[in-house]
């Protein structure tokens, strides 16, 4: 198969990049390994904060529906249940549906693989019933199944707090939120207030000493300050943050850099969201862990820049659009976590330094 633009990942970044690119008239193909498009939006039932101006405030599930509907009206090839597993020697991408592997030639590629959740090791963490907060949210909001009856949440970032609240509202007895530091990591006051109202206890300076169970988790012992607390739980949700999904970048020869505020290792990229491989661009959480608003904006920047390089829009117009998008990105990101945008600026600076260096070496 052949296409001008090949997008890896059908979550918010991939979907938005696809619709912007197709609107510029670019022949676009989008691939996702799941059985439906939407990525993590499919279970985000909460109202999304800080969306770009061109989006109205809405839940993640509504946004996914809206973006999928928009793609339906555009000429975009959608491949669900297809996974990118590598590249051929001639540069074509290998995608499998589980039965055969299909080579895809693309002029430009956007990697929009999103983020993976970090694990946390403690004795007993491999037991059934111990899962990521994201997994619990999928079960509850996408699959309509309660992941357990009595739950403990490990971690207090915004995502963990949000899922704790949703589990409690969904009828799960949330017995506590465990934070190893002395204060909460998350800053969404609305969610924190609601958790207080529901009466979910917070355990600061606390860690899990051990989880027990024969076939699945039944009991947990906490180190709470100097005391050990015992609790009967059948669900432990690990909410230790996110990091960019990077496998395709390595296979596509993109250089990496490290920024803790963006989730650790990530590809270096330019103001056009172009990586060190000139045909590969990055969008969304794969370009650094951030808010939904910034996920959508980075996708739009990548799509506009690809339209520019394929001569679907002139340089002056692309430049103007890109500047406006970066301004909005700075505004949105600085509102939630200032360090995120500063880290992003570092990544772009490092891309520039690498480019300068390779020009010097090339002479």
């Amino acid at each position, binding site marked *: 198969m052949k296409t001008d633009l090949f997008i890896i990942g059908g979550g918010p970044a991939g979907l938005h990049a696809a619709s912007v690119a197709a609107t510029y008239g670019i022949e676009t193909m989008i691939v996702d*390994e799941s059985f439906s498009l939407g990525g993590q939006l499919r279970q985000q039932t909460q109202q999304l904060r800080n969306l770009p101006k061109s989006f109205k405030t809405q839940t993640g599930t509504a946004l996914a529906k809206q973006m999928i509907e928009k793609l339906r009206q555009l000429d975009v090839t959608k491949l669900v249940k297809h*996974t*990118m*597993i*590598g*590249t051929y020697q001639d540069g074509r991408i*290998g995608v*499998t*549906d*589980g*039965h*055969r*592997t299909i080579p895809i030639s693309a002029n430009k590629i956007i990697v929009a693989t999103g983020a*993976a959740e*970090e*694990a*946390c*090791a*403690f*004795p007993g*963490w*491999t037991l059934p019933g111990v899962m990521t907060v994201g997994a619990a949210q999928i079960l509850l909001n996408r699959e309509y199944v309660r992941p357990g009856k009595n739950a403990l949440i490990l971690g207090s970032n915004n995502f963990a707090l949000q899922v704790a609240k949703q589990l409690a509202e969904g009828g799960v007895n949330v017995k506590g939120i465990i934070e190893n530091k002395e204060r909460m990591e998350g800053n969404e006051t609305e969610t924190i207030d609601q958790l207080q109202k529901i009466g979910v206890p917070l355990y600061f300076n606390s860690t899990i000493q051990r989880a027990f169970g024969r076939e699945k988790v039944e009991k947990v012992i906490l180190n709470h300050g100097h005391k050990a607390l015992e609790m009967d739980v059948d669900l432990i949700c690990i909410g230790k943050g996110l*990091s960019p999904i*990077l*496998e*395709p970048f*390595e*296979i596509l020869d993109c250089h*990496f850099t*490290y920024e*803790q505020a963006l989730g*650790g*290792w990530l590809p270096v990229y330019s103001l056009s969201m172009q990586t060190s491989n000139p045909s590969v661009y990055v969008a969304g959480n794969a370009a650094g862990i951030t808010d939904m608003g910034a996920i959508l904006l980075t996708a739009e920047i990548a799509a506009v820049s690809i339209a520019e390089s394929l001569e679907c829009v002139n340089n002056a117009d692309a430049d103007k659009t890109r500047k406006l998008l970066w301004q909005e990105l700075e505004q949105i990101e600085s509102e939630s976590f200032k360090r995120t945008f500063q880290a992003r600026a570092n990544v772009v600076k490092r891309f520039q330094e690498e480019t300068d260096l390779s020009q010097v070496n090339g002479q």
Partner: protein
Amino acid sequence: MDESTIICKCEEINLAEIESAIQSGAHTFDDIKRITRCGMGPCQAKICSSLVREIISQSLEVSLSEIGLPRMRMPLKPTRIAALAGKETSSSVVSVFAESAPKEGDES
């Protein structure tokens, strides 16, 4: 965490095994992988990568930004041989297996 806590869920490599690899001179994820099989199971280090790099960082007192990622190899996700070989070639893969399998009545 104690010494017997599993770090690599697929290959079931525990903290003691990783620490002893570090004591033997391992200082990257791939060093530990070669010594212990950590990260060589079906998930290909997708889950233990950060856990192991954190342990290296603490044991050797180096910043996480100094500890590189494990080498990520193709296929990026578990893939069946038939899907890699293609429909026609998959039958030849099957026939290769059939050839190497002992035939009925073989004595070996």
